[in-house]
Protein backbone atom coordinates (compact mmCIF):
# COMPACT_ATOMS: atom_id res chain seq x y z
CA UNK A 1 0.00 0.00 0.00
CA UNK A 2 1.23 3.47 -0.83
CA UNK A 3 0.18 6.33 1.43
CA UNK A 4 0.94 9.64 -0.22
CA UNK A 5 0.14 13.22 0.80
CA UNK A 6 -2.22 14.91 -1.64
CA UNK A 7 0.18 17.74 -2.46
CA UNK A 8 2.92 15.29 -3.50
CA UNK A 9 0.50 13.33 -5.66
CA UNK A 10 -0.62 16.60 -7.30
CA UNK A 11 3.00 17.58 -7.97
CA UNK A 12 3.66 14.27 -9.72
CA UNK A 13 0.56 14.69 -11.90
CA UNK A 14 1.45 18.31 -12.71
CA UNK A 15 4.97 17.28 -13.71
CA UNK A 16 3.64 14.55 -15.99
CA UNK A 17 1.21 16.97 -17.64
CA UNK A 18 3.90 19.62 -18.08
CA UNK A 19 6.33 17.24 -19.83
CA UNK A 20 3.70 15.50 -21.98
CA UNK A 21 4.25 14.13 -24.64
CA UNK A 22 7.69 13.27 -23.24
CA UNK A 23 7.82 10.91 -20.29
CA UNK A 24 8.32 12.69 -16.97
CA UNK A 25 10.28 11.09 -14.13
CA UNK A 26 11.35 11.73 -10.57
CA UNK A 27 11.17 10.50 -7.02
CA UNK A 28 9.79 11.16 -3.57
CA UNK A 29 12.38 10.92 -0.82
CA UNK A 30 11.51 10.04 2.75
CA UNK A 31 13.26 9.13 6.02
CA UNK A 32 15.11 5.81 5.67
CA UNK A 33 12.96 2.90 6.83
CA UNK A 34 9.83 5.03 7.31
CA UNK A 35 8.00 4.24 4.05
CA UNK A 36 6.80 7.87 4.20
CA UNK A 37 7.22 9.98 1.06
CA UNK A 38 7.99 13.54 2.11
CA UNK A 39 10.14 15.34 -0.42
CA UNK A 40 9.30 15.81 -4.09
CA UNK A 41 12.27 15.67 -6.49
CA UNK A 42 11.53 16.07 -10.20
CA UNK A 43 14.35 14.69 -12.34
CA UNK A 44 15.45 15.56 -15.85
CA UNK A 45 14.59 12.82 -18.33
CA UNK A 46 17.95 12.52 -20.06
CA UNK A 47 16.26 10.63 -22.92
CA UNK A 48 13.65 13.34 -23.54
CA UNK A 49 11.51 10.75 -25.24
CA UNK A 50 7.81 9.96 -25.44
CA UNK A 51 8.58 6.29 -24.80
CA UNK A 52 11.69 6.13 -22.62
CA UNK A 53 13.07 7.80 -19.53
CA UNK A 54 16.36 7.79 -17.72
CA UNK A 55 17.51 9.90 -14.78
CA UNK A 56 20.45 12.09 -15.80
CA UNK A 57 23.45 10.32 -14.26
CA UNK A 58 25.07 13.41 -12.71
CA UNK A 59 21.77 14.54 -11.20
CA UNK A 60 21.12 11.07 -9.87
CA UNK A 61 24.53 11.04 -8.17
CA UNK A 62 23.90 14.38 -6.46
CA UNK A 63 20.39 13.41 -5.36
CA UNK A 64 21.47 10.03 -4.01
CA UNK A 65 24.41 11.62 -2.17
CA UNK A 66 22.07 14.24 -0.71
CA UNK A 67 19.60 11.58 0.45
CA UNK A 68 22.40 9.71 2.17
CA UNK A 69 23.47 12.89 3.97
CA UNK A 70 19.88 13.37 5.15
CA UNK A 71 19.38 9.71 6.06
CA UNK A 72 16.68 9.37 3.42
CA UNK A 73 15.90 6.85 0.74
CA UNK A 74 13.83 6.85 -2.45
CA UNK A 75 10.34 5.89 -1.23
CA UNK A 76 8.60 6.49 -4.54
CA UNK A 77 10.07 6.41 -8.04
CA UNK A 78 7.61 7.80 -10.57
CA UNK A 79 7.40 8.19 -14.30
CA UNK A 80 4.70 8.76 -16.87
CA UNK A 81 3.48 6.90 -19.92
CA UNK A 82 2.14 9.30 -22.51
CA UNK A 83 0.22 7.03 -24.86
CA UNK A 84 -0.20 3.77 -22.97
CA UNK A 85 -1.67 2.64 -19.68
CA UNK A 86 -0.20 3.36 -16.26
CA UNK A 87 1.22 -0.14 -15.89
CA UNK A 88 4.90 -1.21 -15.77
CA UNK A 89 6.22 -2.25 -19.18
CA UNK A 90 8.81 -4.97 -19.77
CA UNK A 91 11.46 -2.23 -19.80
CA UNK A 92 10.20 -0.78 -16.51
CA UNK A 93 10.38 -4.21 -14.92
CA UNK A 94 13.82 -5.09 -16.22
CA UNK A 95 15.38 -1.82 -15.07
CA UNK A 96 13.70 -1.58 -11.67
CA UNK A 97 16.69 -1.33 -9.37
CA UNK A 98 15.28 -0.12 -6.03
CA UNK A 99 13.49 -3.12 -4.51
CA UNK A 100 12.28 -1.08 -1.55
CA UNK A 101 10.61 1.64 -3.60
CA UNK A 102 7.00 2.10 -4.67
CA UNK A 103 6.93 2.48 -8.44
CA UNK A 104 4.28 5.02 -9.39
CA UNK A 105 3.08 5.07 -12.96
CA UNK A 106 1.06 7.97 -14.31
CA UNK A 107 -0.60 8.00 -17.72
CA UNK A 108 -1.28 11.21 -19.58
CA UNK A 109 -2.78 9.52 -22.64
CA UNK A 110 -6.17 11.06 -21.91
CA UNK A 111 -6.20 14.86 -21.79
CA UNK A 112 -9.11 14.94 -19.33
CA UNK A 113 -8.10 12.31 -16.81
CA UNK A 114 -4.78 11.16 -15.37
CA UNK A 115 -4.27 7.57 -14.32
CA UNK A 116 -2.19 7.22 -11.16
CA UNK A 117 -1.24 3.72 -9.97
CA UNK A 118 1.42 2.23 -7.73
CA UNK A 119 3.35 -1.02 -7.89
CA UNK A 120 6.08 -2.98 -6.16
CA UNK A 121 8.64 -4.46 -8.57
CA UNK A 122 10.87 -7.03 -6.88
CA UNK A 123 13.01 -9.60 -8.72
CA UNK A 124 11.05 -9.10 -11.91
CA UNK A 125 7.63 -9.54 -10.27
CA UNK A 126 5.08 -6.74 -10.42
CA UNK A 127 2.44 -6.38 -7.71
CA UNK A 128 -0.09 -3.57 -7.87
CA UNK A 129 -0.94 -1.93 -4.57
CA UNK A 130 -3.70 0.41 -3.42
CA UNK A 131 -2.94 4.12 -3.15
CA UNK A 132 -4.22 6.11 -0.17
CA UNK A 133 -4.11 9.86 -0.64
CA UNK A 134 -3.72 11.61 2.70
CA UNK A 135 -4.84 15.17 3.31
Amino acid at each position, binding site marked *: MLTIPRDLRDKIVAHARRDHPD*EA*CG*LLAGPAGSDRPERFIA*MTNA*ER*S*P*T*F*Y*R*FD*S*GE*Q*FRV*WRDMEDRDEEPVV*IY*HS*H*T*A*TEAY*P*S*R*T*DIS*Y*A*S*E*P*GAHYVLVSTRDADATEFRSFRIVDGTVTEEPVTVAE
Partner: protein
Amino acid sequence: MAIDVRIPTILRTYTDGAKQVEGTGSTLGEVFTDLDRKHGGLRDRLVDDGGLRRFVNVYLNDEDVRFLAGLDTPVKDGDTVTVLPAVAGGAA
Protein backbone atom coordinates in the same frame (compact mmCIF):
# COMPACT_ATOMS: atom_id res chain seq x y z
CA MET B 1 46.32 1.10 -1.96
CA ALA B 2 42.71 1.25 -0.92
CA ILE B 3 39.85 2.33 -3.12
CA ASP B 4 36.55 2.79 -1.32
CA VAL B 5 33.69 1.32 -3.36
CA ARG B 6 30.06 2.16 -2.54
CA ILE B 7 27.64 -0.63 -3.38
CA PRO B 8 23.94 0.01 -4.15
CA THR B 9 21.20 -1.93 -2.34
CA ILE B 10 20.48 -4.23 -5.24
CA LEU B 11 24.10 -5.50 -5.39
CA ARG B 12 24.61 -6.02 -1.67
CA THR B 13 23.71 -9.69 -2.01
CA TYR B 14 27.25 -10.06 -3.40
CA THR B 15 28.89 -8.29 -0.47
CA ASP B 16 27.06 -9.97 2.45
CA GLY B 17 25.00 -6.83 2.86
CA ALA B 18 27.93 -4.41 3.00
CA LYS B 19 27.28 -1.01 1.43
CA GLN B 20 30.94 -0.18 1.33
CA VAL B 21 33.85 -2.43 0.35
CA GLU B 22 37.52 -1.89 -0.42
CA GLY B 23 39.36 -2.78 -3.58
CA THR B 24 42.82 -2.33 -5.05
CA GLY B 25 44.04 -1.64 -8.53
CA SER B 26 45.40 1.18 -10.65
CA THR B 27 42.38 1.38 -12.95
CA LEU B 28 38.66 1.01 -12.41
CA GLY B 29 38.71 -2.28 -14.35
CA GLU B 30 41.42 -3.68 -12.06
CA VAL B 31 39.44 -2.66 -8.98
CA PHE B 32 36.35 -4.50 -10.27
CA THR B 33 38.42 -7.60 -10.98
CA ASP B 34 39.88 -7.38 -7.47
CA LEU B 35 36.42 -7.03 -5.92
CA ASP B 36 35.22 -10.04 -7.86
CA ARG B 37 37.84 -12.20 -6.12
CA LYS B 38 36.29 -11.44 -2.75
CA HIS B 39 32.71 -11.03 -3.94
CA GLY B 40 32.22 -13.51 -6.76
CA GLY B 41 29.73 -12.51 -9.44
CA LEU B 42 29.85 -8.80 -8.69
CA ARG B 43 31.95 -7.92 -11.71
CA ASP B 44 29.47 -9.54 -14.07
CA ARG B 45 26.78 -7.13 -12.87
CA LEU B 46 28.99 -4.16 -13.73
CA VAL B 47 30.82 -5.20 -16.89
CA ASP B 48 29.90 -7.01 -20.09
CA ASP B 49 31.69 -7.68 -23.41
CA GLY B 50 31.37 -4.04 -24.38
CA GLY B 51 32.84 -2.62 -21.16
CA LEU B 52 30.79 -0.98 -18.45
CA ARG B 53 27.19 -2.16 -18.53
CA ARG B 54 24.90 0.37 -20.12
CA PHE B 55 22.43 0.89 -17.31
CA VAL B 56 24.91 0.94 -14.45
CA ASN B 57 26.33 4.34 -13.49
CA VAL B 58 29.82 4.35 -12.02
CA TYR B 59 31.38 7.48 -10.57
CA LEU B 60 34.97 8.19 -9.60
CA ASN B 61 34.57 10.65 -6.75
CA ASP B 62 31.97 13.02 -8.28
CA GLU B 63 32.36 12.20 -11.97
CA ASP B 64 30.59 9.69 -14.16
CA VAL B 65 33.42 7.53 -15.52
CA ARG B 66 31.76 7.50 -18.95
CA PHE B 67 33.13 11.03 -19.23
CA LEU B 68 36.56 9.89 -18.07
CA ALA B 69 38.08 6.69 -19.47
CA GLY B 70 35.49 4.08 -18.55
CA LEU B 71 37.11 0.93 -17.21
CA ASP B 72 40.55 2.35 -18.05
CA THR B 73 40.04 5.31 -15.73
CA PRO B 74 43.06 5.52 -13.41
CA VAL B 75 42.30 5.39 -9.70
CA LYS B 76 44.48 6.25 -6.73
CA ASP B 77 44.61 5.65 -3.02
CA GLY B 78 41.80 7.41 -1.22
CA ASP B 79 39.48 7.63 -4.26
CA THR B 80 35.84 6.68 -3.88
CA VAL B 81 34.04 4.71 -6.55
CA THR B 82 30.24 4.81 -6.37
CA VAL B 83 27.99 2.39 -8.24
CA LEU B 84 24.36 3.37 -8.87
CA PRO B 85 22.05 1.38 -11.14
CA ALA B 86 20.48 3.72 -13.66
CA VAL B 87 16.88 4.63 -12.97
CA ALA B 88 15.24 4.09 -16.34
CA GLY B 89 12.34 2.54 -18.15
CA GLY B 90 9.62 3.46 -20.58
CA ALA B 91 6.44 2.51 -22.26
CA ALA B 92 7.96 0.04 -24.69
